[in-house]
Structures are given as structure tokens and as C-alpha cells.
């Protein structure tokens, strides 16, 4: 690629103005939703906390999952990754927002509102006492700080070296940066696995501190990977509406994204079913209540919805080669997956919070007790993730616009952009 051409492409691949507008709108939506949330939190605190945790884990998942997919791409290469690398990097750089948004959760921990092990009476139970070395407030917060530190570190270097590649004119320099990215990604994936596992234990699993499952970390990892992949697909489809970029995103890229999405959907179903079958078969008193809470009553319908919407439907839809190659139909599946991710997290998190004894009001609300609180709880379930998402998207749009939408220094770019005629 000649220097002029490079200079030309640099401007060509800047984010379209629509991205900025989108960010602005997202911020407005976020602020409005936040105000409503704060109001709702006074009416039904329990409803607020569980909705907040759902939204928080979902959006953190987009950021952190993006890290994993970037690293996966660095390790394996391939055109599919080249074209979504920048959106993924932008998503990973929203981590500061998520770090700030963790403060309400820290507040809930300090005020014993979310996690039973923070409640003194609960913590006196033999089974929880045993875990006190691990499940205590300072260590919990310390770990969270550590997770974010690690994620920042990964996101910082992955973005920095990626940007450096753009301006590096010397192929040897580019090659060195590529090696560096690759060398970071190997241990980085390892670090990702460990931090996400313990984050999953801390943030979600410890909602029911007597319950445990060894596959849980993997389940959350796959969920987050799936979320960010689906999100990246949505992003590419949105930005490919810009005519300057239309030729970049070709059916074969979407085909690969679709295949990867299918793989993630299957992996999620595989992990979820394995966990369910093993616990169902063992039928042990310390394990099975977790599923009892989530399979009977109204939650059973949510579970069925997950089986259909989170697995069966995307699976069948993604089997078709044509549907994977058409951006418009692929984005529908991706949006469905994103929606079901929220539902999955809701199904995972909310029953635990409802089971918490100290949320008398919340539990009542969920069981159809107080009319007003009840309605508020339902509304909160929708608007809290939107509130968090508004801020997240706003920041994401800024980050996305700050750099070219394609990694101009990537050696695979030429191949990725090549018109693959006669190729399928």
C-alpha cells in the first residue's frame, strides 16, 4: 500500500457522523432512564438492585468479552477479525465507564443490600462463615479493583499497539507490533479466563453464597463473548450503512461472524445444559434449589424462553448459509441474541435477589404483593439496563469515532478487503 493510498484510506475509514449522533442520543436516553431509575429505586429498592446488577453484568460483558475476541483474533488471524477489530477495541475502552458504574454496587455491598453474605445474620451461617476469608467486603472490593486493573491493562496495550500499527510505515515495525499483540494475547486470554471466572463468582454466584458450580466461570465467559460478538455484528451492520464503508463488510465476513456466533450459541447451550443435567441428576440439597428457584413458578416460562430464544431459534436461523451471509438477516439474529443475553442474566440474577430475606419489600413486589412497587419493579427491569447502556453507548460512540474503523496497519487488511469473487 503506497503512502498516499494509506493517507487516503485513513480518512476514508473514519467513523461516519451517524456514530456521533447515536452517542448523543444514547446519552440522553441514559440520563432520562437514570433519573427514572433513581425514582424507582426509592419505591422498590430490591427491584432496582436486581435490575441494576443485570444491566451492569450485561454491559460489562460487552466490554470484557470484546477483549477476549480481540485476543482470539490476534492469535488466530483471519479477515473476520480484521473488520471488527476496531469496534471491539472501542468497546473494550469503555471499561472506565463500567468501573465508575460499579460504585452503586459497592454502595449496595456496604449497605448489605445485594449479597446475603454481607448481611450479618446471614453471614453467621456455618456454610457462609467457612467462606468468610473469601467473601468479605474488603477482599471483594479489592478483587474487583484487581479485575478492572487487569482489564484496563489489556485494553490499554491492545488499543495502543493496534493504533501504533496504523502509523507504522515500516513493514518490519508492523510485524514487530503484530508479534507483540500476539505475545500479549496468549497470556492475556489466560488472564481473561481467570479474572472473569472470579468476577463471575464474586458478582453473580455469591448472590446465593451456599450454591456453587465449577462450570460457572466458563458459562459467564461464553455469555460475555457471545454478547460482544453479537454487539460487534450489530455495530458493523450499522456502520456499513455508510456508503464509504459498504464495500468493506462483505458477505464472507458476515458468514464467518455468523459461524462464530453459531459456535458461541452452541457453546453457551452446551455449558448451560451440562450444568443443568449434572445438577439435576445429582439432585443434591445444596445444589438443586438454585434450579428449583428458576424452573418453577413464573421463572419456568423464562427458562423455556431461554431454551427457545437463546438456543433453538438462533441455532436454526444460523444454520442457513444465506442468512449468515446477508447482513440484514444476521443482524436480526444478533439483536435476538443480545436481548436473550439480558433475559439470561435476569433469569440468573433476579431469583437470587428475590430469595434474599432482607428484601422483604422486593420479594413481596415480585410475588405480586404491593401494586405500585410491583409495577415499578417491572419497569425497572427494562429501564435500568437502558440507563447503564445509554452511558456505555455514549462512551463507545466517542471511542469508535476517535480512530479509523479499520486497523490500517494490519497485514491481513488487504486480504480482508480483497473482493473475493469466485470465493465463497
Amino acid at each position, binding site marked *: 500500500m503506497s503512502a498516499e493510498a494509506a493517507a487516503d484510506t485513513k480518512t476514508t475509514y473514519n467513523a461516519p457522523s451517524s456514530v456521533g449522533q447515536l452517542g448523543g442520543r444514547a446519552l440522553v436516553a441514559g440520563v432520562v432512564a437514570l433519573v427514572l431509575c433513581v425514582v424507582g429505586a426509592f419505591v422498590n429498592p430490591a427491584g432496582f438492585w436486581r435490575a441494576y446488577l443485570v444491566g451492569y453484568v450485561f454491559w460489562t460483558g460487552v466490554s470484557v468479552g470484546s477483549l477476549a475476541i480481540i485476543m482470539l483474533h490476534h*492469535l488466530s488471524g483471519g479477515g473476520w477479525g480484521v473488520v471488527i477489530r476496531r469496534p471491539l477495541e472501542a468497546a473494550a475502552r469503555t471499561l472506565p465507564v463500567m468501573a465508575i458504574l460499579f460504585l452503586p454496587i459497592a454502595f449496595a455491598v456496604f449497605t448489605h443490600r445485594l449479597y446475603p453474605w454481607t448481611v450479618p445474620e446471614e453471614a453467621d451461617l456455618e456454610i457462609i462463615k467457612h*467462606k468468610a476469608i473469601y467473601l468479605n467486603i474488603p477482599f471483594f472490593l479489592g478483587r474487583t479493583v484487581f479485575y478492572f486493573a487487569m482489564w484496563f491493562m489489556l485494553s490499554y496495550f491492545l488499543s495502543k499497539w493496534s493504533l501504533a500499527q496504523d502509523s507504522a510505515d515500516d513493514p518490519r515495525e508492523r510485524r514487530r507490533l503484530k508479534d507483540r499483540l500476539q505475545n500479549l494475547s496468549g497470556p492475556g486470554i489466560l488472564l481473561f*479466563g481467570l479474572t472473569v471466572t472470579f468476577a463471575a463468582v464474586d458478582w453473580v454466584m455469591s448472590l446465593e453464597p451456599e450454591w*456453587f458450580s465449577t*462450570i460457572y466461570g466458563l458459562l459467564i465467559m461464553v455469555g460475555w463473548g457471545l454478547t460482544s460478538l453479537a454487539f460487534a455484528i450489530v455495530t458493523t451492520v450499522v456502520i456499513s450503512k455508510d456508503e464509504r464503508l459498504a464495500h468493506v463488510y462483505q458477505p464472507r465476513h458476515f458468514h464467518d461472524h455468523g459461524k462464530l456466533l453459531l459456535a458461541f450459541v452452541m457453546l453457551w447451550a452446551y455449558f448451560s445444559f451440562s450444568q443443568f443435567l449434572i*445438577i439435576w441428576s445429582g439432585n443434591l440439597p445444596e445444589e438443586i434449589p438454585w434450579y428449583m428457584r428458576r424452573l418453577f413458578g413464573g421463572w419456568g416460562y423464562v427458562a423455556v424462553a431461554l431454551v427457545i430464544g437463546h438456543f433453538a431459534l438462533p441455532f436454526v436461523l444460523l444454520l442457513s448459509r444465506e442468512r449468515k451471509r446477508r447482513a440484514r438477516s444476521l443482524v436480526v439474529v444478533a439483536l435476538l441474541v443480545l436481548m436473550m443475553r439480558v433475559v439470561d442474566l435476569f433469569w440468573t440474577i433476579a431469583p437470587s435477589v428475590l430469595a434474599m430475606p432482607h428484601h422483604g419489600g422486593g420479594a413481596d413486589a415480585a410475588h405480586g404483593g404491593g401494586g405500585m412497587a410491583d409495577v415499578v419493579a417491572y419497569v425497572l427491569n427494562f429501564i435500568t439496563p437502558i440507563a447503564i447502556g445509554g452511558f456505555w453507548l455514549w462512551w463507545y460512540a466517542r471511542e469508535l469515532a476517535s480512530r479509523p474503523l479499520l486497523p490500517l496497519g494490519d497485514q491481513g487488511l488487504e486480504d480482508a478487503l480483497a473482493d473475493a469473487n469466485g*470465493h465463497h
Partner: protein
Amino acid sequence: MASRVDEPHDDLIHVTPNPVIEPGHTAASVTDKISALVLKRKTPLAWYIGFFISFSLANVLMFTIAYLVTTGIGIWGNNWPVGWAFDIINFVWWIGIGHAGTLISAILLLLRQEWRTSINRFAEAMTLFAVACAGLFPLLHTGRPWLAYWMLPYPNTMNIYPQFRSPLMWDVFAVSTYASVSALFWYVGLIPDFATLRDRAKNRAFKVVYGMLALGWRGSARHWHRYETAYLLLAGLATPLVLSVHTIVSFDFAVSQLPGWHATIFPPYFVAGAIYAGFAMVLLLTIPLRKFYGLEDFITLRHLRNSAKIMLATGLIVGYGYMMEAFMAWYSASEYEGFMLKNRIWTGPYWWAYALLLITNIIIPQILWSKRARHNTAILFIVSLIISVGMWLERFVIIVTSLHRDFLPSSWAMYRPTIFDWSMFIGTIGLFFTLLLLFIRFLPAISIFEMRTILPGAAPKEEG
């Protein structure tokens, strides 16, 4: 990391030191070289020596089985509370080894990884033979293998059917499906090569035999199209099948309530372990094979390097599994889980097995982070050997150390394998190599027609 998810043209051959096939080859040279391995009358002396050794070991197996079925499985060391021991260890070990074959073939085909071409045939054969060895163990453990057909649902005079809630029954279906699909997948891949051999063979008997196996394949364009479609679909089916098989093997343990077995991470952890052991075995076999048969052109360093990376990745997943098991055993606050953990790694009489497991399976393979280690066939060979031992030890730890201390202290006992445990295990290794040697002697160990497709100039040039 694991695999290269990319398009063939994205393959950065110009910067990759080792291509998937050395330059200078043509369709004719590839065909002649590979088919000569089979059709050339002179069999290397090393083959005869290898065959003699492995066939002798296979006979040890035959005699052990003969003694076993006439006497009973009491000749094994299994006894309460260790009711499952070498038989299941070896079963899981072999079936795990079998996984890499289908995986290389199927997943890498789906991911359009060209480097699979030169090792897939060989790996598939390895799968089949490993599954055959694996199948022997549960079959013989039933005590009355001649009644094995009772495990299939057929209209019998007892009006009774298998118990479908049992993971052991899932195993029957999984392993038999796996064996038949793998065998057919392998055979379908061989059909065009049988045609090649049929057309090359000089000996009339060989012509007839290969001709029958080729089913009259003539390379028609329409046939090729359907063939490719079927092959791709089979690969798509085989991939989840492979994962399901070891998942179900893991259910054999995880579905129970025994501490040390009942862990939700077992499915992915077993699958990763299977791929780990499988790739180790692939390297263990291909490194000498390419040397003796001069196949360095086809099985290049790149294959070995990629296999090493996959081993590293799956090995780390296995390590993650150990870590999560240990962490959750503590986190669960369950008395039994806690005891299991302590007994397994520290206070129990089998602590050495766990320590050895960590060394062989986790610590030593970390050498594969080093690029230099990945490029050294000797190191790769040794590491693969160590991993094979390590993965065997893993099953030993899971099975024997979990069982020898069960819920009732009065029934605690140690496990001691008898000579027949060992002779069966070693015998299956003999059987495996016997079959493998027969395979490389009589069938093309490298897919000839697929090698032709990856040659430069294989694709027709488009005008304009």
C-alpha cells in the same frame, strides 16, 4: 492460540516459514509418492520389526481376554470400594486419544485449515483404532461381553429395554455412534484414494480389492460435488459429535454424587483433556512416521507447531479445570468435598499421583510457550509422551483417588492393579499399533486427492 480461524487466502504463506506442502510437487508426484507407500512391494524392515512387537503385544491382549472371559473379571484388581479402575481409566484414556482424529478432520475442515490435509487421514485412522481399544474395556467390564447386545434396544424376549436415564447407556450410544460415524467418515474420505490405488496397482488381487473398496469411483464432476457436500456435512456433524462423546464420558462420573466426580465443569474439562491427549498422540505418531517414511514434505513443521499450540491451549483448559475443582471444593464448604480435596492432593495415600499429574500434565507442557520448543521435534516428541502419561494419570487420579475413600470409612481400601490389568492395558497399546501399522502398509496414510487440491495451480484459472 488454538486454531487459525481464517480464509485460505488469508493464510500468510509468504511470511510463514513452513508451508503445508513443500514446493516443487505436482499432482503426479504427490500421487506417485503416496501411493507408492502402499503399492511398493518392498516393506521396510522397521515395519516388520514394529509389527512383530505390536502384534506380540496384541496377542498378550488376546490371551488376557481369553483368560478373562473364561474366569471372570475377578482377575482384575478392581474391588470394593474401587469398583472402577484400570478398565475405565484405559477406556477414557483411549477414547480421549481418539478425539484428536475426528477433530483434526472435521473442525479444521470446517475452519478451512489446509494444514489438516496431510494428517487428517492418519488422525482419523488413529481415532478408529483408539475407539476400538477403548470399546474393549467397558465391554469386558460387563463381565459377560457375549451378551453386550443387551445394551441395545431391540425387541427381546425379556420385554425389557436399556435404562435410558443412566449415563452408561448414553455412553453406549455415544461411543457406538462415534465409532460408526468416524468409520464411515474415514471410509468416505478414502473412496477417491481407493480409486487411485485401483488404477495404480499392478497386482490383480490388489486391483480387485481396492476396486471393490473404491465402489467404482471415477471422479465425475457431479459426483465430486455431492461428495464434497456430503463430506462437509459430515464434518459439521462430526464436530459436535466428538464433543458430545467425551462430554457423555464425563457424565459417567459427573452425574453421580461422589465428591471428586460430581462437578459441573467435567464436560468441557474432559473434552479439553481428550483433545490434549489426542494431539499428543498425533505428534507421538507423526513425528516418527514422517521421519521413517520421508514425509517431511507433506507433514511439515507447521503441522507440528500448530498441534503444539493446540496442546498448549487445551492443556491450559485442563489446568483451569483442576484449579476450579480445587477452588470449588473449598468454596462449597461441603465436608465431603473438602475431604476429597485434602485427601487427593495432600493427606491421602495417592498424593504422589496428583503431584505427578501436575508435573506431567501442567508444569512440563508449559515449555510449549517457547517458540524454540515448538520447532524442535525431539522436544515435541518427549513432551507429547509426557502428556500421554499425564492424561492417563489424570484419569487415575479422578477414578481411583475418588473411590478409594468413599463415604463409609470402614470400606476404605487401596487399589492395586494385578498383572492382568497391566497386560490388558499394554495389550491394547499393542493392538493399536498393530492396526496402525496395517493401515499405513495397506492404505494411503495421507489423503492423496486432498493433497492435489492444495497444490499450486490446482484451481482452474479464470479468464478475464
